[in-house]
């Protein structure tokens, strides 16, 4: 135990063997990775807004208000009734931004789960069984990576039909290549560990080695990749909605709000600020979190 004594002036001092009591874990982490916490706050904020959008909304996001338009019939700048202003149809931008968070998060999370599942499975199979299976899967990965992703997703959504579900299916089904590559590399390195050899020598089944040894070892990089991919896929969703292929009007998505704003932004620039900043902060949150976690998981990092 540390020997801590308080001197007269109230300053704590360690005596003899200075075994300083370690600062609380959370505090140490916060000091080492302040950006992770910033990212965490942004992500939690986004989740909160997405979940409680109906409670937080000021107005129905799709309703067009007579008093939401100026005398000339143009959009209103931010004011006390409409805190973020209105768009050219007289709808409340604040409420629309809230509901945009829902779509964004929904597409980001579900599409990432789909690619996570496909990528991890293929990566494990490829890395563990090697040989012919590996060659086939890695070629397939090369093919997926050579595709212009946006065009590919757009074409797939066009043939599936335009809906939010098809949107995240398309993004998820096409976005697994990077995960598969990383997982495969990780499996290849774990496979060489001596304790895997030992387990094999003891007669452990493939299934047992995969689930008990390989799988736990690929979790850290997969968590990092998934976090980053949620942010990326949110960006992709808004891009597609901006191009008019994602979320269909009148429903709000940050992407289609920006597309609508583009029509009138010369005299109503606020139509771009709020959805644009919301999108930036949301994506930034996931990127900060993912990047920080990568650092935190990095075994080479000197602590």
């Amino acid at each position, binding site marked *: 135990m540390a020997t801590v004594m308080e001197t007269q002036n109230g300053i704590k001092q360690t005596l003899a063997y200075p075994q300083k009591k370690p600062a609380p874990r959370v505090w140490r982490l916060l000091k080492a990775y302040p950006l992770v916490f910033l990212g965490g706050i942004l992500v939690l904020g986004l989740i909160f807004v997405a979940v409680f959008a109906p409670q937080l909304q000021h107005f129905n996001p799709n309703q067009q208000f007579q008093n939401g338009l100026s005398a000339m019939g143009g959009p209103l700048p931010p004011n006390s009734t409409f805190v973020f202003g209105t768009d050219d149809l007289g709808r409340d931008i604040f409420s629309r931004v809230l509901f945009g968070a829902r779509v964004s998060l929904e597409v980001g999370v579900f599409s990432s789960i789909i690619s996570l599942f496909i990528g991890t499975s293929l990566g494990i199979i490829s890395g563990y069984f090697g040989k012919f299976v590996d060659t086939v899967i890695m070629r397939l990965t*090369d093919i997926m990576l050579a*595709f212009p992703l946006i065009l590919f997703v757009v074409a797939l959504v066009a*043939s599936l039909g335009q809906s939010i579900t098809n949107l995240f299916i398309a993004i998820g089904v096409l976005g697994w290549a990077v995960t598969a590559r990383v997982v495969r590399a990780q499996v290849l390195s774990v496979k060489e560990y001596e304790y895997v050899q030992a387990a094999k020598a003891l007669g452990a089944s493939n299934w047992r080695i995969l689930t008990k040894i390989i799988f736990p070892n690929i979790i850290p990089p997969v968590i990092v990749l998934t976090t980053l991919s949620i942010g990326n896929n949110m960006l992709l969703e808004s891009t597609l909605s901006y*191009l008019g292929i994602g979320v269909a009007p009148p429903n709000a998505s940050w*992407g289609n709000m920006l597309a609508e704003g583009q029509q009138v932004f010369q005299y109503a620039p606020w139509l771009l600020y709020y959805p644009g900043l919301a999108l930036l902060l949301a*994506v930034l949150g996931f*990127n900060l979190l993912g*990047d920080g976690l990568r650092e935190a998981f990095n075994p080479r990092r000197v602590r």
Partner: protein
Amino acid sequence: MISYIIRRLGGSVIVLFGIALITFILAYAVPSDPARMILGQHATLQQVDALRKQMGLDEPFIQQFGNYLMNIIHGNLGFSFLQNLPVATLIGQRLPATFQLALVAWLMELIIGLPIGVFMALKDRKMTDHVFNLVSLIGISLPTFFVGLELMYWVAYRANLFPVGGTGGLSFVILPGLTYGITGAAYYSRLLKSSMVDVLNSDYIRTARAKGAAPLRVIMGHAFRNAIIPVITYGATDIGALFGGIVVIEDVFGYSGIGQMAVQAINNLDTPIIMGTVLFAAVFVVAFNFIVDLLYGLIDPRITY
């Protein structure tokens, strides 16, 4: 070396074949009848059937795919449904505009990204590191079309320095290029910075410093030259992707490049153009990946095949 090139070339051909196959399946699955699209709403059923037969649309899947492949090999990417021109010609028309934009966008990335990378590597302290991480991640998180629209508003519309959009001379390329530069530069800075920090901590840099080499010479002559290797790799794949068309930014600025043509084709369900542009973009990616792999050996003598 020769056997490596041949193997690598074989791999590229397989990848391109796979892309052609997937694109074809996708186009096959699109719920639209090309014959009906070409003839329009008022054509009779007999006319549509006749055209279907003429276009080979009633043949089995394998046969159709075979025909498609043979046509590609002969440089025939098919005919646009709506414009009734060969897809290859349409892509050719937009090629100069896309190349021009790609080159400017790429240079903007380098001009913004590389100096920041070197600077941050030299100032590698805990606090500056956090700031750099935050700023570069903001750059990566920026939606390209948002940056494009804001630049359009402030620089083109308010300050009136550049045209708001369209295609033409160099002045039309600056803003779309800058948009790409702002959102893409962070990848270069991050890559160069981490690579540079590794190099600066290596033994030969310490030796060079101990010998008393001038600091600038150590940084630019010794460290930068070695740290730039991963950046060259990334840069080559990056410009490969850019040459295939910059889908979103071209659309924002109404720039008539290949990316914009692809988006319009998707909105019109003009399948041959969609397939042509996807294949075109993929060829560039595959080709530049191939070049990068060969370049490796030239830039880094430690690598042998």
